[in-house]
């Protein structure tokens, strides 16, 4: 193996070491392995709708997801559409949006973009002026709504996100730390109003996802969001990566554990029923939804700064 490990399946030049099994994969077999796991996830969603939406930020995960779905188009009969939210983050989002447009054009995928200013009247940068709230909290609330609105506008009932196995394992551990079982079931389809969400990369590691984007010639080292500061997730990520290095397979087991819990407790955990927001009518928890709460805070802030 002097300097050049070879694929365990075909003796081609290896690009990847599966640390759990100790096997090597070449570019083609790595891609096929990722595609098989994604297809396995997707075919569980029956029936597949005519139109299949992908939440497409333009980052590496959603870029790789789009590339995999395009490669699988003969096995997935649905028409693909990429849905992008432009939050309005100066010095960062322009480049990722440009990359998103370029990827869709190269992959010949229909692409729709919705912007915060179009939907809420302000960009995330505007929201953050003099705000005491964390940017990621506000962005998360507004971006989720923007994606729901865009999916609704485009008639998308099934929406795939680029969350990978590492994200999944991190979230599982974070939920365990907070001991909040409700979080395990959050977003697991309590209403027919929203597009159903699936995570086709839930059994694919972040390394494999990144590698897939690189091997598809679609990876570019994009700038980091200037608001990114989820220190707790970062800590959990480092901890899990260290653990995975010493105990290969831990990440996969942890990601799988939450799915097991969800599947075994399905229907046994009583979730609070959704209500229609009294301001906008959208489904949410509580009389006033989180989006309207954020918008109201913003309005109050503007009024106090203009002395109204």
């Amino acid at each position: 193996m002097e300097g050049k490990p070879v694929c365990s399946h075909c003796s081609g030049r290896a690009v990847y070491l599966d640390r759990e099994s100790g096997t090597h994969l070449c570019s083609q077999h790595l891609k096929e392995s990722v595609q098989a796991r994604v297809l396995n996830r997707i075919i569980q969603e029956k029936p597949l709708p005519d139109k299949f939406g992908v939440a497409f930020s333009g980052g590496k995960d959603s870029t790789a997801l789009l590339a995999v779905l395009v490669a699988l188009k003969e096995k997935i009969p649905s028409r693909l559409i990429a849905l992008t939210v432009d939050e309005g983050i100066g010095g960062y989002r322009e480049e990722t949006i440009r990359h998103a447009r370029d990827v869709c054009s190269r992959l010949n995928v229909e692409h729709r973009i919705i912007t915060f200013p179009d939907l809420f009247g302000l960009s995330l940068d505007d929201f953050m002026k003099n705000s005491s709230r964390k940017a990621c909290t506000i962005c998360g609330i507004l971006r989720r709504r923007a994606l729901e609105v865009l999916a609704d506008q485009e008639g998308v009932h099934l929406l795939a996100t680029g969350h990978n196995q590492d994200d999944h394992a991190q979230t599982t551990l974070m939920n365990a730390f907070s001991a909040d079982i409700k979080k395990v079931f959050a977003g697991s389809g309590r209403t027919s109003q929203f597009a159903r969400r699936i995570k086709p990369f839930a059994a694919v590691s972040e390394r494999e996802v990144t590698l897939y984007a690189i091997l598809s010639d679609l990876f570019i080292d994009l700038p980091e969001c200037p608001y990114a500061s989820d220190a707790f997730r970062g800590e959990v990520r480092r901890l899990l990566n260290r653990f995975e290095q010493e105990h290969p397979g831990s990440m996969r087991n942890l990601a799988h554990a939450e799915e097991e819990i969800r599947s075994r407790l399905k229907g046994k955990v009583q979730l609070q029923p959704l209500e229609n927001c009294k301001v906008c009518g959208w489904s949410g928890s509580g009389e006033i939804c989180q989006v309207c709460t954020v918008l109201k805070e913003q309005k109050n802030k503007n009024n106090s700064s203009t002395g109204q």
Partner: protein
Amino acid sequence: MKIIFPDGHEREIASRGRTIEAIIQEQGLNPLELLVSRDGEIIPEDTIGNESDSIRLIRISHGG
């Protein structure tokens, strides 16, 4: 061998017949958080390094 780190800085490191993984770990980095490219081609981290190699480390996750 020449190692180009994700932040762009470069360092000459003696490979001494070790794997790239061992060299990365020696630098205090977790090989699971990186991909390795040699002369523009992705290679697995258990590849044995040569003194003449130019190795680029690609960071796979951001933030936090």
